[in-house]
């Protein structure tokens, strides 16, 4: 029973990276909004701070929604000369961006905001259910600044886990039953045939819904940029730690 194109989808829960996210794009200097295509690929279409993926926010493409943006590690208000520095630009969701505002990189107590390109998230945070628990002072400052456990973000994480877990189960257990039910219907008495076919039809409905839901969570979204300012050097790959966690949905 064919219901899916082969694709890589997100894991039900994104595990934290054990290494900093290595930058692979190096666009020529320009205005920071023009880096968006590079940044989407660079950070795997995910907010570098809370790790929510574009698909967690919306199905069918993020562009035009305003739900993600270019965040400046050192705020523009603090260092206007770094506004268009690519290495100062990070892909972030609107929620993390809004929570931070112009909070300084270092607070009065000397705590420093963590940079996902120089700090491995797994060294500073621990997953606790759908939350990210900070493990030190800098992580605490980072978690509070970006409000990493904003209840909305927790809800997005929970929703993905539920959808992917349920969808995979439906795809794993449904198709074989559909085939068996239809086989049985062929050999059944006429009066039994309708109920067998109707049950197969019901199961097929679940399978199709599951396939559609899982397709929403593909790691490379449908509106992924097909070019960026890097030109021929365009790296069309999500960060390795994300790709390593992705699930392969085979043609089935």
């Amino acid at each position, binding site marked *: 029973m064919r219901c899916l*194109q082969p694709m890589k989808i997100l894991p039900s829960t994104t595990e934290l990276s054990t290494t900093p996210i290595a930058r692979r794009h190096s666009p020529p200097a320009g205005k920071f909004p023009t880096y968006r295509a590079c940044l989407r690929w660079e950070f795997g279409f995910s907010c570098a701070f809370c790790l929510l993926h574009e698909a967690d926010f*919306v*199905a*069918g*493409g993020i*562009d*035009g*929604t*305003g*739900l993600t943006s270019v965040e400046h590690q050192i705020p523009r208000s603090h260092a206007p000369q770094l506004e268009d520095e690519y290495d100062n630009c990070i892909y972030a969701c609107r929620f993390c961006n*809004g*929570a931070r*505002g*112009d*909070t300084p990189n270092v*607070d*009065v107590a000397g705590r420093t905001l963590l940079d996902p390109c120089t700090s491995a998230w797994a060294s500073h945070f621990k997953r606790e259910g759908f939350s990210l628990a900070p493990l030190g002072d800098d992580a605490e400052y980072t978690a509070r600044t970006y*409000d990493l456990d*904003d*209840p*909305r973000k*927790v*809800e*997005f994480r*929970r*929703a993905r886990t*539920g*959808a992917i877990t*349920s*969808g995979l*189960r*439906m795809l794993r*257990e*449904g198709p074989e*039953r559909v085939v*068996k*039910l239809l086989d*049985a219907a062929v*050999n*059944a*008495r006429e009066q*039994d045939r309708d*109920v*067998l076919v109707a*049950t*197969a039809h*019901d*199961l097929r409905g*679940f399978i199709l*819904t*599951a396939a559609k*839901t899982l*397709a*929403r969570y593909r790691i490379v979204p*449908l*509106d992924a940029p097909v070019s960026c300012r890097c030109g021929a050097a365009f790296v069309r790959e999500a960060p390795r730690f994300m790709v390593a966690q992705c699930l392969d949905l085979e043609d089935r």
Partner: protein
Amino acid sequence: MNTSSYELPSWLLSGPPLDELTAALRDVYEFFAASGADVSDFIARVIRTAHPELAGLQPDLDDAFAIDAETEINECYRKLRALAASPDGAEYSDTLSRLRALQEDEARRLSSVFRSNVDLDLLAFETTLARADALLATHEDPPKHD
């Protein structure tokens, strides 16, 4: 029908006039609606590509991300930043409580919208699966037709 694999034509980026786009989309919708196919995601994607300013037309965005609530949430964040020097004060604590209450409301709304868009009812699936297994058990040795 899988509309997700459809590449959108580049002329959409030039923002074609809305009346032309509407007429074209109406034709697409009527053509595929007759076959029972769901093309709403496809149409939403076309609209967002051609006219990003109309993104709010997509129902789950419209319902889920309430602008008023977000404005109030951002106001709380601004206040908390201003009070960051005295996080033990009553005003900080009140603002944080207000922020959490707003976010919880939004989280509930998002959850409800998500559930209405992603209809994966595991319980109903398990019930149907159990019905299938019971039926299959009674048809292990199906009587053959003449």
